[in-house]
């Protein structure tokens, strides 16, 4: 395996070679759950279905040889006008045991923006999912508390959606507020 030079993207072939056995293991364990896969510029990427996000994650966390015990990040992308399926929820997993990374992508249609929650599996998902919900309006089935995390309760709309009005102003709510801000 070639050594990755610091400050540059790692060699694509080296990454492919590194992730080969991981991919085989995943394919044997998950089977049809993997809709497609790709060797990304830094780690292996799997495309999964939104409703099976939690069952796939359970397998990723508990299966021997995988043990992805750390949910590093969870976020969403709005592909408005660029892709047919508008949203995509992105999961980054890390295995502290095997020192391996994995990215899972769950495309979510605008007509039914719902993903199964990872809250029961990873406590870290609690606030990630609340944030995604208030910023993109994607619901998480099975999450215990979908209140807003960063914005105040009266806030309308989903500010990180690409069609949220850039010049939109909302009234400031609360004691002493003098005007819209």
């Amino acid at each position: 395996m070639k050594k990755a030079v610091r400050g540059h993207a790692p060699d694509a072939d080296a990454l492919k070679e590194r992730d080969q056995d991981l991919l085989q293991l995943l394919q044997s364990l998950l089977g049809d759950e993997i809709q497609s896969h790709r060797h990304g510029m830094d780690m292996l990427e799997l495309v999964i279905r939104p409703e099976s996000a939690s069952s796939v994650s359970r397998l990723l966390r508990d299966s021997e040889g995988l043990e992805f015990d750390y949910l590093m990040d969870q976020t969403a992308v709005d592909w408005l006008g660029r892709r047919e399926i508008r949203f995509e929820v992105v999961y980054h997993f890390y295995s502290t045991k095997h020192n391996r990374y994995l990215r899972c992508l769950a495309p979510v249609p605008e007509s039914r923006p719902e993903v199964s929650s990872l809250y029961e599996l990873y406590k870290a998902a609690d606030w990630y999912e609340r944030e995604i919900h208030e910023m993109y309006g994607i619901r998480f089935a099975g999450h215990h508390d979908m209140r807003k995390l960063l914005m105040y309760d009266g806030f309308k709309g989903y500010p990180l959606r690409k069609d949220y009005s850039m010049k939109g102003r909302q009234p400031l709510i609360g004691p002493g507020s003098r005007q819209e801000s």
Partner: protein
Amino acid sequence: MAVGHAEGPGQNLLLTRLEDVISWARSNSLWPLTFGTSCCAIEMMMASGASHHDLARFGAEVTRPSPRQADLLIVAGTIVKRMAQPLRTLYEQMPEPRYVIATGACVISGGPFIYHSYSSLRGVDDVIPVDVYVPGCPPRPEGLFYGILTLQRMIRERAGLKHPEERRAPVTAALPEGITKQEIQAEMLELFEAQGRRNVHEEYRRTVSDPGAKGAYPGRGERG
């Protein structure tokens, strides 16, 4: 007898002097409640906590974490709308007389977030009344000191204390002749949006393939 004295010049003199003494004492023992939310707060800590700058010279070094023990609220840092309510509550909890210093562009006008921000407040004076504005992004500790000295002078002159409603409106610098505020705003908006259209990912990719390329993502190639 006492009534006669109250109307005479002697009594008035005593009263005035007592007020002077109180304002003098008050101005030299400000107890700031520090409300630091972002980068400006670092500079405020630098001013109030670090020995190099020594805020104690002006009698305002006893920073309080509780509004009940403070009479000066230093707002340092971006205030998001979610934070506006706690800030107002803290202000209400401070005993009278209370003063507010707003440091940094963010609390004065919204600063870098003045355009298109869905989350931040455009000027903290939408929520609480401000006595002294200290401009800068962030203002240096000396700037904050100047703000505190200005406030002390205001207290000694009893501006804002006897007539709390009559706070002075902030002064804006005069514009050059023939230029309107709208023109400046439009130009800034244009510059800002031109920046926003720069495709950083493309530039980054170009740098990775050709580290020496001109105008590429800064620093990446040289550092290696």
